[in-house]
């Protein structure tokens, strides 16, 4: 079924309806339709279109799998020097490249902007005896294997959160009973139904279900508390774990300086626009705008940090 999602992901916008002279952007979403990368690819272009910043339309390609590295590989292969091609990416791709030993890395593309951040949440079933982070750590210490942990792909940001929690609590992160799920929908039903002890996912994915009383959020992974979620941060709970699922946009390999400047200008304008602010609100994303060289520096730090985390957790040799 998941495979058909990728197949269906050829969902494409406006190609047939744009005027003949327009030059639509080529946009890669390295994840299935309806997922995080998909939204990160489409919504900025929706906003730019609505605000009149960039109205030539865009053709989207969804190519999920392997932490986004399959999409990355295809993007780099097909768009050498194409100033019109951009790709959504994020922290999961940084980890995915390491996990899969991808020959194509983020060094091959042109970083443009970081746009959003989605705080992670740690949640349990509503009727779970685990009330807080201390309970969770105690349960993990009692029998690590008995704590079935759900989340996104192996080595993804959710896995990193749990690995760090284990490490901070003095447990061996490599022996977590981590069960990866393809979609937030599957994770949340497995958690709500009691098949999983605990699950990690993005706040935007879990919050509606928590509000509906299906699951209970016991912690957030940001520095401090998050508005609208009644749970402490892991840091407040005594574990020095801060992880954000940030996402951004990179340009094609070998993008010209003019092309880079053009996109940075478009994203700067889009970031200021009312439509984008509205989008952030409806999607439940935090604004994490970081542009140009600052983003490059941040990306390099993140590569090192995540490399260390995955190695500590025994996920990367």
């Amino acid at each position: 079924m998941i495979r058909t999602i990728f197949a269906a992901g050829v969902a494409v916008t406006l190609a047939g309806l744009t005027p003949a002279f327009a030059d639509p952007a080529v946009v890669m979403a390295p994840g299935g339709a309806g997922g995080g990368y998909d939204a990160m690819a489409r919504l900025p272009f929706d906003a730019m279109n609505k605000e009149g910043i960039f109205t030539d339309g865009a053709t989207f390609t969804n190519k999920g799998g392997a932490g986004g590295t399959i999409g990355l590989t295809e993007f780099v292969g097909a768009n050498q020097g194409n100033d019109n091609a951009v790709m959504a990416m994020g922290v999961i791709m940084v980890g995915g490249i390491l996990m899969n030993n991808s020959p194509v890395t983020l060094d091959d593309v042109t970083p443009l902007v970081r746009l959003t951040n989605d705080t992670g949440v740690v949640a349990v079933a509503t009727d779970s005896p685990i009330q807080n982070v201390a309970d969770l750590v105690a349960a993990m210490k009692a029998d690590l294997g008995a704590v079935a942990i759900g989340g996104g792909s192996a080595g993804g940001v959710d896995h990193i959160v749990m690995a760090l929690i284990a490490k901070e609590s003095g447990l061996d992160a490599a022996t977590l009973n981590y069960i990866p799920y393809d979609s937030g929908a599957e994770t949340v039903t497995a958690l709500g139904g009691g098949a999983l002890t605990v699950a990690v996912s993005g706040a935007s994915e879990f919050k509606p279900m928590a509000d509906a009383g299906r699951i209970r959020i016991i912690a957030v992974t940001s520095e401090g508390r998050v508005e609208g979620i009644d749970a402490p941060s892991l840091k407040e709970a005594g574990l020095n774990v801060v992880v954000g699922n940030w996402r951004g946009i990179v340009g094609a390999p070998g993008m010209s300086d003019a092309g880079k400047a053009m996109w940075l200008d478009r994203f700067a304008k889009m970031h200021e626009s009312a439509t984008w602010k509205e989008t952030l609100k409806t999607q439940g994303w935090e604004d994490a705008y970081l542009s140009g060289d600052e983003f490059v520096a941040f990306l390099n730090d993140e590569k090192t940090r995540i490399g260390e985390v995955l190695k500590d957790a025994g996920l990367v040799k």
Partner: protein
Amino acid sequence: MTERPYWIAVGIVGWGAIVLYKSAELPQFDQHAHIGPGFMSTAVGVGLVVLGLMLALQIRRGVSFEEQGAEDISDTHSVSYKALGLTALACALPMLTMPKLGFVITCTGCFVLIAAAFKSNRWALNAVLGFGFSLLCWWLFSKLGVQLGGLLPVWGK
């Protein structure tokens, strides 16, 4: 005389061996589920080898292979290897020409080859028909947003 297609059994055992060989590189067991990434593929590889050997045994005993029925098949089941070759060529053509020459030219070629395989010898007419049909498909589906590539990719775009 009974046909004895041992090569099928050999192919199945061979594919099973490849699966087994590649599975051996993977851990068979896992700490919590006890079933590791290599477990399933090893099982499948073993199954293929065993089934291939069973098939070889059946072939030795002279089991008969009856062709399946389909529409438009002559009653005698007489095989035209020329037609088979032409059709196979049509199916292989996209591998050679699709990335460079693009969808329309590739499909025109496929159209002509398939038509020839079905004993339609009006080459010029078929080429025109095929080109028109391919162009129409390309235009229509590209408008709808299916990424079929440029009209002639080798001409830069």
